[in-house]
């Protein structure tokens, strides 16, 4: 057993970090989200072949594992990247795990190459769906508890709406007839939850890094504020949240490819830990920053907004806790 990245996996992580460092930062994320600039990252990700990272080779992907996919997602989450990559990866995971042969043949190669991108929509109680960065996508995969379907973008109408997360473009989607994915939807959605959780690990880690840096340098009462336990213990708790979420995501990603029976539990652990950890870490980081962290120009609120929005995408913490409890014969789902 080795619970650590291989050299190849480290290379994936480093390549994404390098790509983001040179191509994407919060200033770009802001202008993309506000509609002032195009998505500066997607073409690069396509050119480098990342779009097919976890798609099977028979459909033109790299055929790497879910672990490698989560490393890409974590790096992109840290950089506050648009949802084009995540949505496309989610669409590919859903079609691969829950689509039939025909659906897979029709869609996966386009997702893998990035030439016909997929986007993810979540059905809402009123029958509409919410989707990030769906403009320019070839297809939308829509999910609700126990259900997934794919629909060509032509058959959707998108209406831009103000999102909490201002580094992505949110649309309200109205769809007509959809093509149901009738395979193992739950297992497919669990994989998407893991990818989403990986993004949240990146967000939380970024917020922690900002807080630690601020605690080291900001002086009050003649000392760096990191000497005060009210600050330093906050930072220690952030590390606990970030590392716990990272462990949970890596494990869940590994089970997706190697121990699918363990995936539902592992995915729930990952989502609960990553969503709650990102909320705690981003809010705590803002508190460490004080007033400056509450300004529009500072990145604290971008990370916090992402934590709120992504934390409420797909299954809620309570839904996942119910699933965990049900495995022990407790609660509403069990009864």
């Amino acid at each position, binding site marked *: 057993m080795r619970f650590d990245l291989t050299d190849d996996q480290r290379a994936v992580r480093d390549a994404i970090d390098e790509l983001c460092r040179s191509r994407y930062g919060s200033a770009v994320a802001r202008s993309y989200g506000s509609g002032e600039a195009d998505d500066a990252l997607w073409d690069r990700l396509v050119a480098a072949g990342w779009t097919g990272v976890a798609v099977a080779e028979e459909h033109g992907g790299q055929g790497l594992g879910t672990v490698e996919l989560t490393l890409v997602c974590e790096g992109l989450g840290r950089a506050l990247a648009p949802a084009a990559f995540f949505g496309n990866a989610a669409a590919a995971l859903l079609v691969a795990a829950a689509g039939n042969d025909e659906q897979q043949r029709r869609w996966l190669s386009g997702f893998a190459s990035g030439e016909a991108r997929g986007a993810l929509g979540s059905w809402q109680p009123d029958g509409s769906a919410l989707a990030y960065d769906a403009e320019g996508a070839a297809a939308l995969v829509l999910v609700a508890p126990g259900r997934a379907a794919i629909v060509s973008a032509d058959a959707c109408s998108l209406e831009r709406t103000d999102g*909490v997360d201002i580094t992505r473009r949110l649309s309200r989607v109205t769809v007509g007839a959809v093509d149901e994915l009738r395979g193992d939807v739950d297992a497919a959605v669990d994989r998407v939850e893991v990818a989403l959780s990986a993004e949240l690990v990146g967000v939380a880690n970024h917020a922690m890094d900002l807080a630690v840096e601020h605690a080291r340098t900001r*002086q009050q009462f003649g000392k760096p504020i990191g000497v005060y336990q009210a600050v330093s213990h906050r930072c220690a708790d952030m590390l606990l949240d970030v590392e716990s979420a990272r462990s949970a995501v890596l494990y869940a990603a590994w089970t997706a490819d190697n121990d699918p029976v363990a995936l539902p539990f592992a995915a729930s652990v990952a989502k609960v830990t990553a969503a709650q950890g990102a909320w705690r870490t981003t809010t705590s980081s803002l508190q460490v920053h004080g*007033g400056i962290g509450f300004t529009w120009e500072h990145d604290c*609120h971008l990370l*916090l907004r992402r934590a709120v*929005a992504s934390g409420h995408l797909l299954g809620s913490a*309570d839904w996942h806790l119910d699933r965990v409890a049900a495995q022990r014969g407790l609660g509403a789902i069990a009864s």
Partner: protein
Amino acid sequence: MDLSLTPDEVAFRDELREWLAANHPGVEPADSDAALEHRLRWQRTLFDAGYSGISWPREHGGRGATLMEQAIFNEELVRAKAPSPANIIGLVMGGPVIINHGSDDQRARFLAPILSGEEIWCQGFSEPNAGSDLAALTTQAVRDNGGWTVNGQKVWTSFAHRAKWCMLLAKTGGDDRHRNLTFFICDMNQPGVEVRPLRQATGDSEFNEIFFNDAVVADDNIVGGVGDGWKVAITTLMFERAGLSAASALAMQLRLDELAELIRERGGRDDVTLSRRLGALVVATETMRLNGYRGLSRVIEHGVPGPEGSLAKIQWADINQRIGELAMDVLGGEALVTDPVWTHLMLRARANSIEGGTSEIQRNIIAERVLNLPRMR
């Protein structure tokens, strides 16, 4: 112990309630400039009816209301969903400081336009490198043939772009941290003062930065004396908190009623996790309201506000933040979409544990001044 209102208090409340029903200014406009105009008109209406600065002494233009009447007034405004008057900083801080520490000339000059709202006040204490630590202020005032020349920068000032006067805390020399600050009343309408809006995480610009570049203040506009700034400022900050917490708690109870309504609308009525979280917030808010009244009774008995206000400050921030968090969970998947009420509240509440003294500073104050714990040197 008697928690019923006295006949005088009941009469005051009933009269006020009736007056508010008849004179309510209507819904506040969303636009921030229009909202300020709305609040200026509202202050004028209050002033004309004798409801501006009600707890100020009669000789200074108030109605000499008791602190309890002031608290009733604050609660009734909240209950009626009427806005605060525009010049809240002048009414709650500026006026009381001048009444307590100012000269007769200053009282004659400054008090009346505060009450009427003709002159808006703002507060210039915090600086970029002096948030929690007032001793780290760097804004300097230098004596200069009969007046003072001020250079420096202030942040997080409300209403600065519309203010006539700024309560300005500046260094005036010396090393003793309790004797090297002076409290000035600085005219904002002069070339040496530049105001820039400060955009917040919510996207709003409630606050400003002020840049002082050889700004001039007359000798007459010092409150207290040269070097008394620390003492005067501390009093100001105490006035900021006294008697507001019960009304703040009431405002949160109203908000919690709306959140209960949201839970019902969104079909979460039978989700006991949501309803118990709401219940816990109702309970916490009620204890804050009760703590507020107990604190007020202590002030009435002992004369000056004490550090108990720090408890209310911590509770207020904590409860507001938990309301925001619960609202997001009630919205569920729809929490991705900006909700004008709840998303704004969730974001805005994050500053509650920072503004007006961080929750960490409040805990320091409680530990040192209430519990007499030793202080790190």
